[in-house]
């Protein structure tokens, strides 16, 4: 039976469509979670993200998703993508200081580097700690699509780093069942589908 992955839909911004498509391609079954009632029957969760940190947290509160999500993430594997990764952290500084879901002890701050920001395009990852999420990924060849102006500052749960314009930042973290990737696996060709396959089989 295929694994059921619930995608959290919190408001106006959401590339739910692309993520559910990618999950189905990876062999999973995707469903959408909009309210507290929708959480039943899923094996895993994906927290997507197109948007800004404060807006995402506002929407979470507005749809009463925050507390139940924190609760659910404790026992089901969860993958945060881009802003979805960022709001798993303790605090964000996009526009204003905003509290995140506080599942990862990290801060989200503007990328400070000499290159153009947003960091936009295909880039590689360097794995620094073994994780099932990157199983079978050839990091010397495979690339992932990034589109972000903010980055996660974390020192304890990092599994991958990425170089951009002589600046190194956290491109993936894992703490127990909580995973986050700064890139968009749903926009990273077959390499991205591999990430979803790995997540589904975890």
């Amino acid at each position, binding site marked *: 039976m295929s694994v059921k992955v619930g995608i959290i839909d919190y408001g106006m911004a959401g590339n739910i469509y*692309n993520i559910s498509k990618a999950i189905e391609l990876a062999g999973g079954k995707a469903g959408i979670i909009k309210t507290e009632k929708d959480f039943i029957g899923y094996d895993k969760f994906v927290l997507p993200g197109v948007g800004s940190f404060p807006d995402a947290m506002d929407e979470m509160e507005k749809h009463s998703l925050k507390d139940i999500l924190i609760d659910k993430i404790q026992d089901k594997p969860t993958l945060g993508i881009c802003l979805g990764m960022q709001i798993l952290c303790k605090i964000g500084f996009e526009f204003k200081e905003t509290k995140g879901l506080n599942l990862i002890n990290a801060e989200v701050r503007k990328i400070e580097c000499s290159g153009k920001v947003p960091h936009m*395009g295909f880039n590689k990852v360097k794995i620094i700690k073994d994780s099932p999420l990157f199983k079978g990924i050839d990091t010397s060849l495979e690339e992932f699509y990034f589109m*972000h102006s903010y980055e996660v500052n974390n020192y304890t749960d990092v599994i991958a780093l990425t170089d*951009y314009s002589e600046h190194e930042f956290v491109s993936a973290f894992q703490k127990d069942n909580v995973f986050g990737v700064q890139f968009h696996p749903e926009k990273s060709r077959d390499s991205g589908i591999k990430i979803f396959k790995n997540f589904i089989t975890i």
Partner: protein
Amino acid sequence: MKTRIIAKLDVKSEFVVKPVHFEGLRKIGSPAELAKKYYKAGVDEIFFIDIVASLYQREIRYKEIAESAKDILVPFAVGGGVRTIDDFSKLFHNGADKVVVNTHALQNSPEIIDNAVKIFGSQAVVVNIEAKKWDNYWECYTDCGRIQTGKSVLNWVKEVENRGAGEILIQSVDCDGRKRGFDIELIKSVVDFVNIPVVAGSGAGCLDDILKMRTICKPSGISISSLLHYNELTVSDIKEALKNEC
């Protein structure tokens, strides 16, 4: 980081067309079919621009957009006729990863950029600029090179950067569709003037044009239409040529 190769689909009604100087349209095929074809050929990104939606005040073509987004696993930027935050939201829900604005921001309300950035983040807001060269400056045009705005391109790129836009698509009314090379001076001026990524378009006629522009201007991305539409170059040809040159 490698320069992104972007296939740009100019869409009118239900067809991808290719204008010359933004005029004289030829039908190339359906957007969904071409998006899939170029994705399979290895492009890094696809831009879908409805070139008449603003001019004729048409509705955004969500059906074609969702169809085009269906089979592509690379970013998909969509523009043409975007006027409201609700348009942005609907586009994201129909498969867009970025939304492209031009006419409305330039003619009516530049604040749409600030508002969209607050809700969707910088990375999701692309500003398309159609530049026409005059003696000593470039002027912004809208509606597919038809409407003069009196606004200087360099002032406008700085303004959109300050308003939080995440990316600029710079096109040239003079060079578009002619396949005689890019407006290198224009592209270089814009790339050097802002700290956000710039995608350069209009004028690629051969590999040398692309190489030369890329070497001099160093844009973050290059948008290609005619060369791909008429099968004159493949995405692999372009990537192979750019590989050895940094």
